[in-house]
């Protein structure tokens, strides 16, 4: 399945793209997605380690199983306010 992952702030600037497209086998988890993102986006790897992964607008644990319709995003440390 193809998962589209939204990228924001420095994550987007480092990768030069607002969306990362990641091909994953059926049954893949958030942890699998994180590993694949690390391979695809080497320049953003250290920020990725400090970032959360959101699925459908909530932060997701590594063992969460992904569906092709899930909306995924990398959430770097936030700095609103």
């Amino acid at each position, binding site marked *: 399945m193809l998962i589209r992952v*939204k990228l*924001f*702030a*420095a994550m987007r*600037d480092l990768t030069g793209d607002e969306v990362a497209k990641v091909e994953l086998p059926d049954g893949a988890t958030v942890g699998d997605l994180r590993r694949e993102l690390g391979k695809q986006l080497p320049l953003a790897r250290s*920020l990725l*380690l*400090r*970032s*959360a*992964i*959101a699925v459908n*607008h*909530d*932060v997701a644990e590594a063992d969460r199983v992904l569906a092709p319709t899930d909306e995924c*995003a990398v*959430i*770097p*440390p*936030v*700095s*609103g*306010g």
Partner: protein
Amino acid sequence: MFRLTRDAIDYHALTESARAPHCGAVVLFLGTVRDLTGEHVTAFLEYEAYAPMAEKKLAEIEAEARRRWPVGEIAIVHRLGRLEVGEVSVAVAVSCPHRAAAFDACRYVIDTLKELVPIWKKENAPDGTGEWVHQSAKPGAP
């Protein structure tokens, strides 16, 4: 009530919207753009949000504040886009029957917003360089 906006925040109107007949206390918090962070001079800030998630988290924060305190009204607005020094980036107005709860609830809302809501700021210096601020103790929104 919560809102993300690219327009200047009318915090007088926002405060009025938080007033309620049974509430004897209204607390307003304003976050404003500071000219100096440590030794770094800020020329202007840019704010960006993951809007649908930010709105979901703001709704959860409002609901939790209402669960914990006898809140009459809550109004939360966060600005996005380019902000100059001195401009208001965020406003939180909370009314309660008495002041202690109003202060506590307002503090909870702004502290939790800063911890959990996916909004990011980029500090732009006078020399034209800019840097996203990603230094929260916790990664992202736990």
